[in-house]
Each structure stands twice: as C-alpha cells, then as structure tokens.
C-alpha cells in the first residue's frame, strides 16, 4: 500500500491525542432540596430544618411578589417609572441575603429588590428609586451596600474592589455581587472574577439565570452547559442551584459566604430560575416567548413550592397565609402612601451631592436654577 502521507499523519495524530495525558478535570455540582410539588429530595441542610428560618424566607418571598404587583400597578397608572419585576425568581434574593451578615456588602443588580428589602431597605425607598428620585438610593439598611446597578454587570468589578478592601484590612467580611445570566457575557464580570480568583478575595458572585436577557435566550448568550463553569476559568468553584428552591439557594449561599469569610477565596453560584413576567414594565415578553414555555415554568415557581412543603410539615395554614397577605398589603400600602406624598426635591438639589464642595462655577448654576422657582 502506498501509505500516503495524509493517511499516516491523520492516524498518527489521532493516536497521539489519545495518548495525551489529561492534566485537569472539572465538575459542576447541582443543588436542589425541594421538588416542584414541595416534597424533599434529600436531607435538608441545617438552616433549613429551622422552622423560623423557613417561615422568614417564605414571608419575604410573598412580600416581594405582592410588592412587585403593586409596583406594576403604579407604573401602569403613571405613578412609577419603568420597573423590573422579579416574578418567578423570588427565591433568589432572600436565599442569598439571608445568608449574609449585616457587615457584609451587597452589590445588587436592578432586579434584586428582595435582597435589599431583606437587608432593611424600605419599600418606599425602592419606589422612590423607580419613581425617578435619587433619594431612593440613599437607603436605610447596611450603609455600605451598593445601590441598584442599572448598567448590566458593571458592579462585578466593584465587588472585587470591595472584597480587596476587606482582605487588605483583614476584616472577616464578604462582598456579595448579584447579576443576571446576560451579565455573564460581559467582560466586566469575567475581569472581576478573574481578579478575585487570582487574589483569593472574599467575594461571592451570584448569577440569577432566569434564562432570558430581555429577548435573548441563554443559548444565544453562551454555549456553556452551565454558567457555573465560568468560575473554573477564574480558578474557583462554581455551583449550580435550583434557583426556585429557596432552601438550595440559601444553603449554597451559606456555604459560599462562609468559605469566603474563612479566607478560602471566591465562589460562584448560578441560580437557575425563570422570569415569569415581562423583563420590565416597558417590555412585552409575548413578542419573543411562547405561553407554553411560561406556563410550564409556573408549575415550578418558588412560592407555591415552599408553601406546599410548609403546609405538609404543618408549619403553615390557610389562616397564616391570609394574615401574611393582609400584613404585607398593609405594609405596601403604607409605603406607597409615603412614596406618593413625598414631594419632589427642589430643582436646584440636582447639584447636591455632585461634589463634596460644590465648585463656585457650579454653585452659580445652582443659584440660577433656584432663581427659577415659581414663587
């Protein structure tokens, strides 16, 4: 036989490939405790066996859902600006925030209302923000927490910076940075993770994978099987959790935050969930996804799931539910009232907080604006 060069080379290269040693292998774990019907898949983690914790998580999820509903109603009647709902993904925010300590720092995305609320931000402050008033970002709650980040992903480098400060000062604190699946396509996020990995910083990155970045589905965002594996390239562990199972989110967050606090470097959590609503109040999701798809995900939504479990455990009753709704609605109404009766700031205040000391040239502009008051 002639033994053409092409033939022998291809055989040779195949053989060599097989012989090449594997120098690294990685895996990505998936965590889930609660099935969509509320039954348990595996032994619950310690925190989740505490009824008080479970009920607190449940209450916060319900509060967020009712608050969202109200916010949308306000927007529809022209009393609030564009608003990002978290319908269907309510398990993520409290799951993450409840594992944080007060002295940790949260760096949220615009959809993480629930995490802010858990950390003590007032409902009226959130309304003020979405109502177009900067005072909404001067919120109550941990004073070091970052405001909502509207540009997608640009808060991730801040999180690395915050964590670097903790490390430099040897403080046992953790930065927790939240963003969506779309954000993982941004260089900002990878750059932050890469640095955090290289310096073993105490930071936890949380990607809420709700499958859609406005109209762009995950498969056009990445061909990665999981987002969690993006951590591997940055040198640390990424884990995927069922993001509609608040117990899984909470347990993953606890583990990751503890590891970070103990000096074991960053972690990445991908919480796989689903946005049941529109992207924001200016979006119409029916343009790009089918009712069937959405309907299927309603069957897995986080609130009904935890409720089923709690009811099964005799930890929750219909009466409890009614009381909770009433209580939430009362709290929400009070916040709305507060928001609606907060007068706009005087126009010249747009210069306040621009600089620590307003340079005189700009002070003159401020006076010009003040002079324009309708007396």
């Amino acid at each position: 036989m002639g033994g053409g060069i092409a033939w022998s080379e291809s055989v040779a290269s195949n053989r060599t490939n097989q012989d090449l040693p594997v120098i690294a292998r990685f895996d990505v774990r998936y965590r889930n405790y609660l099935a969509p019907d509320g039954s348990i898949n595996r032994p619950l983690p310690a925190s989740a066996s505490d009824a008080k914790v479970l009920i607190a998580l449940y209450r916060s999820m319900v509060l967020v859902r009712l608050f969202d509903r109200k916010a949308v109603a306000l927007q529809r009647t022209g009393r609030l600006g564009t608003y990002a709902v978290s319908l269907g993904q309510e398990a993520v925010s409290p799951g993450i925030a409840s594992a944080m300590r007060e002295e940790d720092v949260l760096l949220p995305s615009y959809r993480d209302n629930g995490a802010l609320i858990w950390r003590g931000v007032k409902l009226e402050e959130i309304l003020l923000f979405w109502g177009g008033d900067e005072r909404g970002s001067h919120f109550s709650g941990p004073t070091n927490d970052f405001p909502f980040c509207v540009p997608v992903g640009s808060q991730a480098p801040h999180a690395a910076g915050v964590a670097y400060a903790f490390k430099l000062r040897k403080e046992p604190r953790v930065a927790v940075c939240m963003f969506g699946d779309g954000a993982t396509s941004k260089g900002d996020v990878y750059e932050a993770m890469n640095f955090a990995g290289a310096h073993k910083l105490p930071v936890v990155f949380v990607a809420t994978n709700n499958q859609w970045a406005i109209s762009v589905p995950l498969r056009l965002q990445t061909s990665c099987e999981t987002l969690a594996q993006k951590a591997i390239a940055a040198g640390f562990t990424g884990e995927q959790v069922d993001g509609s199972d608040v117990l899984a989110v909470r347990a993953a967050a606890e583990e990751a935050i503890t590891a970070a606090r103990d000096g074991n470097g960053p972690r990445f959590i991908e919480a796989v969930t689903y946005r049941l609503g529109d992207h924001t109040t200016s979006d119409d999701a029916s343009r790009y996804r089918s009712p069937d798809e959405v309907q299927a995900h309603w069957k897995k939504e986080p609130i009904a799931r935890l409720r089923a479990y709690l009811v099964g455990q005799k930890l929750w009753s219909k009466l409890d539910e009614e009381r909770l709704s009433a209580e939430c609605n009362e709290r929400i109404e009070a916040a709305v009232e507060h928001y609606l009766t907060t007068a706009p700031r005087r126009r010249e205040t747009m210069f306040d907080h621009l600089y620590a000391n307003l340079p005189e040239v700009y002070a003159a502009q401020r006076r010009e604006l003040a002079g324009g008051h309708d007396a």
Partner: protein
Amino acid sequence: MPEVTLVEAVNLALGRAMEDDPSVVVLGEDVGINGGVFRATVGLQKRFGPERVLDTPLAELLISGLCVGMAAQGLRPVGEIQFMGFIYPCLDQLVNHASRMRNRTQGRLTCPMVLRTPHGAGIRAPEHHSESTEAMLAHIPGLRVVMPSSPESAYGLLLAAIRDPDPVVFLEPTRLYRAAKGEVEDNGEALPLDRAFVLRDGRDITMISWGAVLKETAAAADALSDEGISAEVIDLATLKPYDEDTVLRSVAKTGRCIIVHEAARTGGFGAEIAATVAECSLASLLAPVTRVTGYDTIIPMARLEQHYMPSVDRIVTAARKLCQFR
C-alpha cells in the same frame, strides 16, 4: 407620502440599506425577534434572516469590536447600543480601533461601520438611560458623529452613514422617536453628511442646535418672531466634522449666535462652535456668543429631569439678551 415617526424612519432606512446591499448586517442586543427595545429593527430579522440581523450576547464592547472586524472584511455592520449610557464599553474599540483603522494601515484596512444609539433625556427613563455625551465622541479624530432631528433626516442621514466608507456613530434623539412625525418617502435617497441644515432663515440671531432640543430651539424662534426678532435656526446634524461654513456664514449675516444643547455645558460641543465663531467671526459679532445647555450635573432622574433640559424660556431669554446689544 406616508407619515412616519422617527423610529419608523430609522427602520425604513435599515430595511432599505439591507435590501440594496447584501453586505449590510444589523447586530445588537434584542435587535432580532424583539425588533429592538425601541422597535427600530422590527421586522428585519424576518426579512433578512438571523445571520444578517444578529442578536448578540449582552456585551457592548463585543458589539463595537465585531463591527470593526466585520467592516474590515467588507461587511457594512450597523451595531445597536440599547441606550447611550451603555456605549462607554465601546469607547475602547471606537477610539483605539474603529476611528484609526484607515490611518494606521494607511488605507489598507478600513472601517465602514455604523454604531447607532438612542441619545438624550426627556423620556422619564431609569438611571443611565438619558445620556447626551456626544462631545466625548465628537472629540475622537477619524470618527463621524451624526444626529438627526426629524424622520426625514433620520432616514436620509442613516442611509448616508451606512454608505459612508468610514465609521459613524449615529445618535438618535430618543425623545423624538415617537414624538416626531413626518413624511418620508422610502426612495433610498441619502442626505449629505458633514452638512448643517438651515431649518429657518433669519436676520437677527443664529440659533444652532442638534437632535431633540431643536424642538425647543424652533419653538423659541417662533416666540421670538412674535417679538419681532428674526432667528435663523441651524440643525448641525453632523457634529464631527461639523459644517463651520454654514455656521460662520449665518453668524456673518446675523451678528449674534446662540448654541443650544442638552448636554452639560463644560466641554460640551457648544464650546467648540463658540470657539470657532470667536476665532473666525469676531468682526461680525454684535454680541457675545452664548450657550444654552444642560447644567453641569448628572442628568437627574425623572422627577427633576425637565428642569435640567434647556427650556424654550431659557432660550428666549438668552436670545432677548443678545438682541439688546446693538
């Protein structure tokens, strides 16, 4: 001729350009099935397929960098950045690559790309959705910065931008997307770039503006004419390179010049025009060149943003003051 909105005119121009030239590619976040968050690309994916109307990952630097690569390969990419507040990651590509590809390679590689983005405040949008930082872009040598102010100019200028052999940033006045209506014939006729348009002839004062705030400028001209002041209104349209000639000719005639822009005053593009007028037309000036602009502050969120914007009142007051110089 059909009446269309400004955003519909953008859509018409994109469709026409893609129809006429198979190398035109539209890319960006949500430009496909969703038709863009403002619907500028509505229907295009259906007409031209997902390879020519490409939903990109959420990555602005990528969008601008892809455009550079595609353009260097003879495609005519038209990238969309959803809001001007998200254009900043593109600056690296615009400054370091797009604008200087031709120069660096002495013409061996070129960059016929367009980057479109909504521009400006006044739509009660969330934070970072109301930017008007055109001066920053106009400072970059090798780039073109274009801003239409009506459906007609959106159609004609966008076609010109896509056909232009160099990189163009095309800033679309968000406030006018639906508010501005006009008759546009989809005849494939471009308007000239690098040329200002005299929207209204006048004798006493030259008012120069661009984009959405031309609306207030024109209204101010109306108000002034009731007082017997005849204002010439110029739509600058291309900011980089801008049409000094039309500006200077007008100022030579009127002797007075007001520049109106929504962007913050310091380092704004108005300063550039004022400097040119001062350098070249001192002899014909009857009054100091004046700017009416946004304030030197972050554009406030919805509740205060209207107080930030140059109002008809502020423009009229400034014009009156200039006319007191005799």
